[in-house]
C-alpha cells in the first residue's frame, strides 16, 4: 500500500491569492520574484499601504546600489551623483507616464482606480530595480576594466532593457489579472515609457562620465547625445 500523499498540483506563479506571510521587505521581494500574483492581490485588495511602502523602499535601495556601480567608472562625486540621478530620474519618468498609463488601461477596458495603477507600476519598477541590482556585479566588473563611456553606456542600456522587459511583462500580466476584461495591449504606452526613460537619462546627464555641472547646460535629444558619445569614443581609438 502506498502511504505517500498525492503530489500537490504545481502552483501557478500568477495565482491571484493573498501573500502567505505578513508584508515585510523580504517577503515582498520573495513574492515579487516567485508569486507576483500575490503582490498584485495585496495591492488591489489586501494590505496595499504596507506592500507599496516595501516596494518603494526596495526599488529606491536597488536603484541607488546600481547607481553606485554606474558611478564607479568616474569615481569621486559620481559615487553619490549617479545614484541620486538614477533614483530621481526613474521616479520622475514614472510620475510623468502615470496619467497616460491610467488612461491607456481604461482604454483597454480596465475598471481601473488610480491608486491601483500606482501600485502596479511600483511593482513593475521594483522588479526592474531588483533585476538591475542582481546584474550590478556584471556591470561593476566591466566598469573596473574599461574607461570607455560609450562601452559602459551600451552595456547599461542592454542590462536596463533586460530588466525593463521583465518589469513590463509583470505590468501587463498584472493588468490582465486585476481587470479580467482588460486586454494586455500596452504596446504604445511601453514605447512612450521607454522614450521618456531614455530622454530622462539624457536630460540629467552625465550619469556615467564626469562634468563640471550637476545638470547639463545644453539641451539634447537622446539620439543626438548618443551619436556624440559614440563619435567621441571612435575618435579616441583613431
Amino acid at each position, binding site marked *: 500500500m502506498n502511504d505517500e500523499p498525492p503530489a500537490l498540483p504545481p502552483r501557478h506563479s500568477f495565482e491571484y491569492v493573498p501573500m502567505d506571510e505578513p508584508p515585510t521587505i523580504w517577503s515582498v521581494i520573495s513574492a515579487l520574484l516567485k508569486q507576483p500574483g500575490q503582490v498584485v492581490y495585496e495591492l488591489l485588495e489586501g494590505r496595499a499601504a504596507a506592500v507599496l511602502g516595501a516596494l518603494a523602499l526596495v526599488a529606491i535601495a536597488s536603484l541607488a546600489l546600481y547607481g553606485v556601480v554606474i558611478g564607479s567608472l568616474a569615481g569621486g562625486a559620481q559615487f553619490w551623483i549617479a545614484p541620486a540621478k538614477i533614483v530621481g530620474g526613474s521616479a520622475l519618468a514614472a510620475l510623468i507616464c502615470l*496619467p497616460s498609463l491610467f488612461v*491607456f488601461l481604461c*482604454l483597454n477596458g480596465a475598471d481601473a482606480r488610480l491608486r491601483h495603477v500606482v501600485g502596479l507600476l511600483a511593482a513593475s519598477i521594483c522588479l526592474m530595480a531588483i533585476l538591475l541590482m542582481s546584474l550590478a556585479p556584471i556591470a561593476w566588473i566591466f566598469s573596473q576594466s574599461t574607461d570607455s563611456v560609450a562601452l559602459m553606456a551600451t552595456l547599461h542600456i542592454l542590462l536596463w532593457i533586460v530588466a525593463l522587459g521583465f518589469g513590463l511583462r509583470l505590468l501587463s500580466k498584472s493588468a490582465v489579472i486585476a481587470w479580467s476584461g482588460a486586454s494586455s495591449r500596452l504596446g504604445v504606452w511601453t514605447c*512612450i515609457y521607454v522614450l521618456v526613460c531614455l530622454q530622462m537619462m539624457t536630460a540629467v546627464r552625465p550619469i556615467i562620465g564626469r562634468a563640471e555641472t550637476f545638470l547639463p547646460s545644453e539641451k539634447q535629444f537622446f539620439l543626438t547625445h548618443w551619436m556624440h558619445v559614440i563619435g567621441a569614443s571612435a575618435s579616441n581609438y583613431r
Partner: protein
Amino acid sequence: MFDASKRLLRLLAGNAAAQRAWLDERDWRWAGVCGAVIFFGGGIYGATLGLWRDGLQAVFTAIKFPLLVFLTCGANAAFNGCLGQLLGSGMGFRQTTLAILMSFAVTAIVLASVAPIMLFLLWNTPPLAEGNALGGHSITLLAHVGMIAFAGVIGVHRLFRLVVQTSGSAPAARRVLLGWLVGNLLLGTQLAWVLRPFIGSPALAVEFFRTDPLRGSFFEAVWRALHHFF
C-alpha cells in the same frame, strides 16, 4: 443616477451597450459633461502646445484648442450626420453629433494624460532664446501633430463597437468611421491653420490670431517642418 466619472470610464473602455443607451437619452447633461471634458482636457494640452513660445501663448492656445474642437464638431455636424445616414450608421443627426462629441472627449482625455510627457519634451527642446530656435519649433510641431493625430485616431476607434451595434455590420461601421475621420481631419487641420498660432513661430510676435489667417494651409506648414527637420 447620473454619475459622470463612471460614464467617462465606460466611454474610455468602449462599452457599446452603455454608449448606445446614452445616444437615445433626451438629457443634455451627458453632452455637457463631454463638452466640459473637451474644454478642460483640451485646454490643459493646449497650454503645453503654446508654452515653448511664451506663457501668454500658452494661455491663448489653452483657449483656442478646445475652441478648435468645438468648431470642427459644429461645422462638420451636418456633413457627419448626412454621411452617417448615407453609409448606414443607423444614427440621426443628434445622435451622430453626440457620438462625435464623445469621441472628441476621449481624444481630450488621452491628450490631457500625455500633457506631462509633452511638458517633459518641452523641457528638453532647445529654447527660443538659443540659436537653434527653428529646430526647437520643428520638433515641437512634429511631436504635437503626431500626438494629436494618435489621440484623434483613438477617439474615433472608441466608437467602433458602438457604430457596429447601431449599423448592424462591421464593414459599414468602418466606412462610417473612416468617413468621419477624414472629414474631421480635413476641416480640423485647416481650421487649426486659420486659428493659428498654436505653438507660435519663433520669428513672429505672440498673438491670439495672425493678421492674415486665411493665407496658406496646414499641410504646407507640416511639409516645411519635415523638410527642415530631415
